[in-house]
């Protein structure tokens, strides 16, 4: 337990209990099962491993998964902040109904979401017809993947910002206003830095979730090799050849990349917080 040792002043009780339980539960549910991916990759040997994870199709699928997830996360960050703001700060008819529907992307099985979007945006669908007139192709293109991922990641952003926004003490805003700050200045200088950690967390989660998403995307992506094939599909097709090791190898790379990105963002956040205090 060298790593998680307490440092500086910690006067509150319960460190041992809470940390012990956290580490235990984390290991049992996450770390031990996830290590199986690692152990199933080892028997491959280094050469075949490299060969598998750098095959052109696999590389193309990483690129596609990461870029679409990134676009979707950025879009979600903007819309999510907007939605959280509107839901917390304004009072209008139907607000609670909107609030309730934010969680829909979680509760609706991803397969249903995928089917819905594929149907809506197909050339004969409610929205697809309009887009077809403008010659914009949505399904069976990366755009379609982004659409599905925006839907999947949306609640992450809203639900992380919402509680923080609820807790913001309005005296600060009032004080800023009394001192002559405009509404926009107050938002940018006072509120945004306060909300930033939550916003970053939310969109990072949306991003991470987007990289791995499978159920909704396969219905709308088209799945053409080198063009619209996402990384999780590569894992799936390896499994269907009973190639457990190859599947684990691709999964491992995906996992390592996501993990380092999450780690980086968490570090940035930590630093940002110290700055803010």
């Amino acid at each position, binding site marked *: 337990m060298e790593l998680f040792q307490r440092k500086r002043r910690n006067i509150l009780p319960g460190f041992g209990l809470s940390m012990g339980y956290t580490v235990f539960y984390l290991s049992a549910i996450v770390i031990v099962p996830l290590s199986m991916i690692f152990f199933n990759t080892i028997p491959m040997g280094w050469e075949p491993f490299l060969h598998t994870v750098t095959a052109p199709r696999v590389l193309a699928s990483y690129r596609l998964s990461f870029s679409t997830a990134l676009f979707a996360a950025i879009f979600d960050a903007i819309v999510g902040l907007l939605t959280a703001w509107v839901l917390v700060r304004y009072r209008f008819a139907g607000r609670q109904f909107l609030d309730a529907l934010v969680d829909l992307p979680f509760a609706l099985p991803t397969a249903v979401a995928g089917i819905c979007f594929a149907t809506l945006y*197909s050339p004969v669908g409610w929205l697809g017809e309009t887009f077809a007139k403008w010659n914009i192709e949505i399904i069976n293109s990366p755009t379609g993947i982004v659409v599905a991922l925006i839907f999947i990641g949306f609640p992450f952003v809203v639900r992380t910002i919402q509680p923080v926004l609820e807790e913001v003490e309005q005296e600060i805003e009032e004080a800023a206003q009394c001192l002559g700050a405009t509404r926009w200045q107050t938002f940018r200088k006072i509120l945004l830095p306060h909300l930033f950690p939550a916003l970053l967390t939310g969109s990072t989660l949306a991003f991470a979730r987007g990289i791995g998403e499978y159920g909704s995307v396969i219905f709308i992506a088209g*799945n053409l090799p*080198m063009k619209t094939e996402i990384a999780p599909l590569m894992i*799936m097709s390896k499994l*269907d*050849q009973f190639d457990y090791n190859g599947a684990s190898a691709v999964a491992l790379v995906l996992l390592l990349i996501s993990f380092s990105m999450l780690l980086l963002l968490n570090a940035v956040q930590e630093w940002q917080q110290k700055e803010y205090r």
Partner: protein
Amino acid sequence: MNLEWIKKITIAASLIAASGLPGIIAEAAGTATLLNVSYDPTRELYQSENAAFIQYWQKKTGQTVKIDQSHGGSGKQARAVIDGLEADVVTLALAYDIDAISDSKLLPANWQQRLPNNSTPYTSTIVFVVRKGNPKHITTWDDIVKPGVSVITPNPKTSGGARWNYLAAWGYKQKQTGSAVQAKNFVKALYKNVPVLDTGARGSTLTFAQRGLGDVLLAWENEAHLILKEFGTDKFEIVSPAVSILAEPPVAVVDKNVAKHGTGKLAEAYLNFLYTPQAQDIIAQNSYRPRNPAALKKYAANFPKIKLFTLNEVFGNWRSAQKTHFNDGGVFDQIYLP
């Protein structure tokens, strides 16, 4: 605000959990139960077959049987059995998937010799489904590789049916020209015309029938009939090519699991039942081609004469077909490389 409600929720949760588990255990003890792990398109077929078998078995032995069904992509189902889904019988889309189960020692390697007709009580083939009136005039395999024809077929990497589609196209060209190179070019031209590779056969059907994509759908013959039934004969029609592949979806008892459950006799009887005239009739009703000549004759109108070649004729066996064409780096991967 106290911890009371957390306690209440925890207690409620454990009560629900506790009440659910004994139910699952008790069920296993009562009547004899079989688990049939099958692929996607056979849902309707086994619904009828199971009802018929339950009645037949009750009459013959007085024992009540319950048959549980599990359906999914053929490869995925095989993997589940390998990883511990305790199937008494497997009824999958292609022999390669059952070979993989035998590789993990759940059933002997010679499983395909244990039942008549290569352990396939029914067969099917690959046909074309086109939009009503056949606007693109598709009648032969050569028509579907023409530029401007959009073909819908699933991804051979993730769908058993898609592999039969691919092999049918390849086999057609190879038998016609005798050249594997020409066959490869033919298949390459075919997949150039494919705008979407769904992960399963039913996904492709929906892309074609519901989302209006594509001019022609490559499908199992039985699925083609089902599409007409579900989506309307006024919208689609079936075109049977002159030559196609004899698709043989095999069945097998999973020895290790039946030994564990003590259901060996029952499982064997269940699969043998599929060869009886009664079961063969149900098979034909569901648009699978029956092995029994009488049943085939009775429903001849549904099964136009197609010159069918077997997989072994062209590709040797499933293991080598899989290795050459569908495994990573195989022919299917090559045709997509720039």
